[in-house]
């Protein structure tokens, strides 16, 4: 496996462990695995993104004991959709919109999955996830491409 792919795997593993261990309990309302999936989709080709997304979606379903394979399906579809939009739309603004769209889709899909609409919680999730993603994406790209620190986020 290439070094680049190993980096992606390592990031997703760390994010998954963060979600399972929840070092900040429920004070931090975000899903690191989902953010990791978007991160990989924005920076890697479809084949690798889809493979990692499906694998971590499946792992999440196993831990959650979700027999519907909800995360496996959601992450796989998200990976394909992100690549579809990235093929048709280019530029930093498009990437930001794709990320925000994925986040909104995740909120809507999960609200349906639990049959509840938690507006304030969803708002907090959206805000916290966006901020954390900005930081994580910056650090990840520096690590992946050895970009200078003052480079733009997307």
């Amino acid at each position, binding site marked *: 496996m290439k070094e680049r792919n190993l980096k992606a795997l390592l990031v997703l593993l760390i994010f*998954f462990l963060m*979600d*399972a*261990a*929840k070092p900040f*309990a*429920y*004070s931090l*309302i*975000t*899903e690191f*695995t989902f953010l990791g999936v978007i991160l990989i989709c924005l920076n890697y080709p479809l*084949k690798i993104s*889809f*493979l990692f997304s*499906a*694998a971590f979606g*499946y*792992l*999440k*379903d*196993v*831990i*959650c*004991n979700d*027999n519907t*394979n909800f*995360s*496996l399906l959601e992450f796989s579809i998200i990976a394909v959709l992100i690549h579809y939009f990235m093929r048709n739309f280019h530029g930093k603004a498009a990437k930001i919109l794709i990320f925000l769209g994925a986040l909104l889709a995740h909120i809507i899909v*999960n*609200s349906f*999955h*639990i*049959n*509840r609409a*938690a*507006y*304030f*919680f969803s708002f907090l*999730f959206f805000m916290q996830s966006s901020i954390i993603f900005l930081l994580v994406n910056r650090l990840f790209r520096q690590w992946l491409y050895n970009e200078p620190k003052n480079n733009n986020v997307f």
Partner: protein
Amino acid sequence: MLFALLLVLPFRSFIANLLMSFSNQRLLSTQNSSKVIEELKKKNLALLLAVRKSQTLADENEKLKKALNFKEDKKIELTGVEIASFNPSVWRRLAVINAGKDKGLKEGMFAVDSDGFLIGKLVEVRNNFSRLMLVDDPEFSLPVYIGNDALGLLSGGLDAVKIQYVDISDNVKLNDIVWFKIPLLSYPIYAGRVRKINENKNGLFLDVDVRLFSQNPLTKKIFIIK
């Protein structure tokens, strides 16, 4: 790629068991060192609940006392457990604890913190691990008392934990204690206090918001009431 995925799909329970036993192994070393503290906390909690029981009994009316006397009081039994991991999704509030059938746990048992406040209930018990549904999980529900005489259904939620189906004629006040009783145990288990009272849209019931006593399960030792 898809073929490989299809191959691992049937091994769901195996992978789950593998991951859980790994988590348990990790916890074994810390378990031994904190055994003494756990025993002391257990005794402390049993005493705390016993004191609470006597206070409640003193407040209850004669009729209720009579009814309780017919029942045989069971001695409280506690099992100290630790959280091995959480549900990776933030949309559910489920935790995996490092005890299961091997420690005599059963589905429906309640979990309290070291102060005796409700944390959640067991929804799945396996051989060496169990799944604990926290009070603020969207699917959590439990019949509770509010203050002295009001009844309602405590329902979890991501925005707020609420009590539904509280009769509009019930005298519910802000800061009233929300509590419940486990059958055969006369100890009251406290869950929280009334934070907000609203009239339901249909005008028949009150919507009561609850501030939970036990907010952060990570910082607390957890006990399962048997």
